[in-house]
């Protein structure tokens, strides 16, 4: 596996595109109840969780995805690994569109793209031992020899910092951090190239959080992985990511190199989000921008720019009427805001 050369901290864009997401949409459409079956409604309620997203992830990079709860970041992650069927759009993985892949082709994709879930308490089957949990993906990859499987499980456990003695224990016998390690081992069992980490450390204690973050970084180096790292914790995202995408109500608001997003944010939403991060260091604290209200419902997102209802830098009518497009304002730094168009 060749590594894409680094060019002043940014991965080579031309050769490196690993996953390309084109106009990806995931809508949740209201199921008709008895009444609407008899008397069809004119308009069905549609939750546009992911609405027309374009994103490129390069080989070997960690793409951070941040946003408040309900902005669709988890839906995007699940759609990319095809745990949700995309409503529309393309997911091009190493040159092949897998948005509508079925059967063998989808299985093949699953071997290369895996996911680590947010809650280590609910993502492991309580009735299965660690051995069972790790055997299933190994069979799926086609490791038929039980001895080889055994060895592989031992290796995986060791790699994520657990002991092979743990093999016959059940999930409830582990602490939260250890469970998350099992979740990581399960994702690694497929020998993937791409991992979606969906809030992998949110449910963990501070001291354990650091252990898991370090483990994920080590694994990335060692196995040449590519991550999509989803989190609402901005400090964690800053720490692990090469590039960051900021999502709001199903749309990407700003996208760029981590340093650009964190030290030179341009979108008002990013600015407000960053200003809300509490910091232990007094000197680092920014002047807080308190956003009024909460995230509007994705059922009827505001017209025009989705952020205009809470925006403190609103330009005028245009914000309420025209939806801004994601535009490149400088090298690799994209923003969807009328202030910059």
């Amino acid at each position, binding site marked *: 596996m060749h590594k894409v050369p680094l060019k002043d901290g940014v991965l080579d864009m031309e050769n490196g595109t690993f996953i390309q997401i084109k106009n990806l949409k995931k809508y949740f459409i209201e199921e008709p109840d008895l009444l609407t079956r008899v008397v069809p409604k004119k308009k069905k309620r549609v939750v546009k969780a992911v609405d027309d997203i374009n994103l490129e992830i390069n080989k070997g990079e960690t793409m951070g995805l941040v946003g*408040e*709860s309900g902005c669709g970041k988890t839906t995007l992650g699940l759609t990319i690994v095809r745990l949700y069927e995309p409503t529309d759009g393309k997911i091009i993985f190493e040159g092949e569109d897998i948005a509508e892949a079925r059967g063998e082709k989808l299985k093949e994709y699953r071997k290369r793209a895996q996911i680590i879930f947010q809650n280590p308490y609910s993502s492991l089957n309580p009735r299965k031992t660690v051995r069972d949990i790790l055997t299933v993906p190994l069979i799926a990859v086609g490791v038929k020899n039980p001895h080889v499987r055994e060895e592989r499980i031992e290796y995986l456990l060791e790699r994520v910092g657990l002991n092979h003695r743990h093999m016959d224990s059940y999930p409830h016998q582990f*602490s*939260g*951090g*250890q469970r998350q390690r099992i979740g990581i081992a399960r994702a690694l069992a497929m020998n993937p190239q791409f991992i979606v980490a969906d809030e992998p450390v949110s449910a963990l*204690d*501070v*001291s*354990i*959080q*650091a*252990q898991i*973050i*370090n483990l994920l*970084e080590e694994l990335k180096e060692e196995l040449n992985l590519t991550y999509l790292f989803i989190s*609402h914790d*901005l*400090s*964690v995202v*800053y*720490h692990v990511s090469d590039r960051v995408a900021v999502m709001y109500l199903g749309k990407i608001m700003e996208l760029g190199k981590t*340093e650009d997003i*964190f*030290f030179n944010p341009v979108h008002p939403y990013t600015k*407000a*989000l960053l*200003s*809300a*991060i*509490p*910091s*232990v*260091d*007094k000197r*680092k*604290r920014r002047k*807080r921008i*308190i*956003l009024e209200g*909460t*995230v509007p419902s994705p059922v009827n997102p505001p017209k025009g720019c989705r952020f205009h209802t809470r925006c403190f830098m609103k330009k005028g009518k245009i914000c309420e009427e025209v939806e801004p497009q994601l535009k490149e304002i400088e090298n690799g730094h994209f923003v969807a805001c009328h202030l910059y168009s």
Partner: protein
Amino acid sequence: MLEIRNLKVIFETDRGAVRAVNGLDLSLEKGKILGLVGESGSGKSMTLLSILRLVPYPGKIVEGEILFEGEDLLKKSPSEMREIRGKDIAMIFQDPMTTLNPVFPVGEQIRESLRVHNIIKPEREGILGFLREKDRRKKEYEKVVELMEKVGISYPEKRYFSYPHQFSGGMQQRAIIAIALSCNPKLLLADEPTTALDVTIQAQILDLLRKINEVNGTSIIFVTHDLAVAAEFCDEIAVMYAGQIVEKGPVDKVIGEPKHPYTKGLLKSIPKITRKKEKLYAIPGNVPDLASLSPKGCPFYERCEEAVEECKEVELSLIEVSDGEFVRCIKYL
């Protein structure tokens, strides 16, 4: 105003006694905000619940004193405690979604605390008071609307009749704060009030709590696992580990010049937004299981990088290292 002395809470379980809170000393002055920081299982929530004498079964307060305005809360009768809860000492819980009752309108739930503590007194006693019930309700309604407005719920007249599921997480937490404030408490206990919320909403809620602290002079004990939130919001910080306070003092001292190895480790393990990215420091090992923790010696011994042989044996109490700053570590003996 509040002083806790040598508080011990024990849970009797099949696996033996679990010392959830193990000899805790704490004091809080009027109008101050105290942050209680620690990881899960460190006993911070239990400390709050002990103050209200709400420790769940099979937990028991076995030793200690909790002096609130000079009176020991542990010696009060259940009915006296009921008077205090909600009126003098109010509490905000972690998860707003489960704290509110889903089958009653939010406004009614705020009104309930006004009624329970008899905040709006009936004009007359007895049967005539009963006849004036309508007036009393109206006054209570007005007071609730005023409270809702104060905590930043828009359209309070309309929102009064909304049910909890119609509120967002941040709004629900505001409603709970309104309940807590309804009787103008002297002490507010906040148990991870912002953990379930997004950063932008967290900023709103912290802003609101600070305003309450400044305007009403309400003292606050703020429990959190997030050191950064505590650093910004509190005047004083107490760091808990395995049921004990390992370090306490003014914010600048505890965050600026941490003394205890655990506090240092915690501070180092938070990812920081600085130009230079470094590998995160991780405290080795896991959060200890309280049931199997040795009763002797320092509970942090096994995870501590600065530990020496004596740490296993020594019985320590908090040592004052400078004015108002206390540490429980052998290095400062």
